[in-house]
């Protein structure tokens, strides 16, 4: 933990030693945060309302530490990630700030007109994990889901086929063709549903189904 904080303050994303357990988890978080996804953008393409693609360049790396693992609270409070249904999480995304970041936060307390575009973007990135565009972007998960659904349906079909061969008992005698014909004849004799149903489609003079 100390090692990570130390490397944070130096500003380097290197992790010289393999950690274990909780610290390893934090190390992973740090690594992910420091990917290009996590940084603010150049003033040149500082447009946060873009297409949801990750910013292509970064002028400086923010090392943000997500405190999710240390809290025992329920989502969405604990994920540090806003969702469409909960767009303003209680806590900012970056809670441990470097000197630069703290200075920026101080500057934020003044008039916002004095902030440059890059600074505004940086403040946004401090506060939020992703932009709305990034948060809402589609994924291809549905393909995986549908694939698995069809796969298991197919597997079930094979299981039922096996059961048909090896498990099911003999068919009842009343299901033979002869017996079924006798049952149908009896229904027609009774004139069951003679108005819109079965007997309505039978021609009693010609003794055949109506065309």
């Amino acid at each position: 933990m100390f090692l990570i904080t130390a490397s944070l303050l130096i500003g380097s994303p290197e992790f010289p030693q393999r950690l274990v357990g909780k610290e390893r988890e934090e190390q992973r978080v740090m690594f992910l945060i420091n990917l290009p996804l996590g940084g603010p953008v150049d003033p040149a393409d500082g447009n946060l309302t873009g297409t949801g693609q990750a910013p292509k360049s970064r002028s400086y790396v923010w090392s943000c530490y997500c405190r999710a693992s240390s809290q025992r609270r329920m989502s969405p409070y604990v994920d540090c990630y806003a969702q469409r249904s909960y767009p303003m999480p209680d806590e900012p995304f970056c809670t441990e700030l470097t000197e630069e970041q703290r200075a920026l936060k101080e500057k934020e307390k003044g008039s916002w007109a004095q902030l440059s575009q890059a600074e505004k973007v940086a403040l946004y990135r401090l506060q939020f994990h992703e932009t709305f565009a990034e948060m809402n972007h589609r994924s291809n998960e549905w393909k995986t889901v549908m694939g698995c659904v069809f796969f298991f349906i197919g597997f079930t079909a094979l299981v039922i086929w096996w059961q048909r061969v090896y498990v099911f008992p003999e068919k009842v005698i009343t299901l033979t063709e002869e017996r079924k014909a006798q049952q149908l004849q009896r229904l027609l004799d009774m004139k069951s549903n003679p108005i819109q149903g079965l007997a309505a489609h039978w021609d009693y003079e010609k003794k055949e189904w109506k065309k």
Partner: protein
Amino acid sequence: MSSGTLPKPQMRGLLAKRLRVHIVGAFVMALGVAAAYKFGVAEPRKKAYADFYRKYDSMKDFEEMRKAGIFQSAK
């Protein structure tokens, strides 16, 4: 302020706008389905029953059934 590249989105009245569209649609759907059922199912059925019973002779029907042998109490 930022050099706004996007027009300001609709901020108010979103629910009202949605409701206006959907209430009309709901009415149309409901009335349409009801009308379709009435004229597709209910009226033909009433006509079929009326036609059937216009020329229905219950005794003749009974005799046919009796000859077919389905009754236990009237052979």
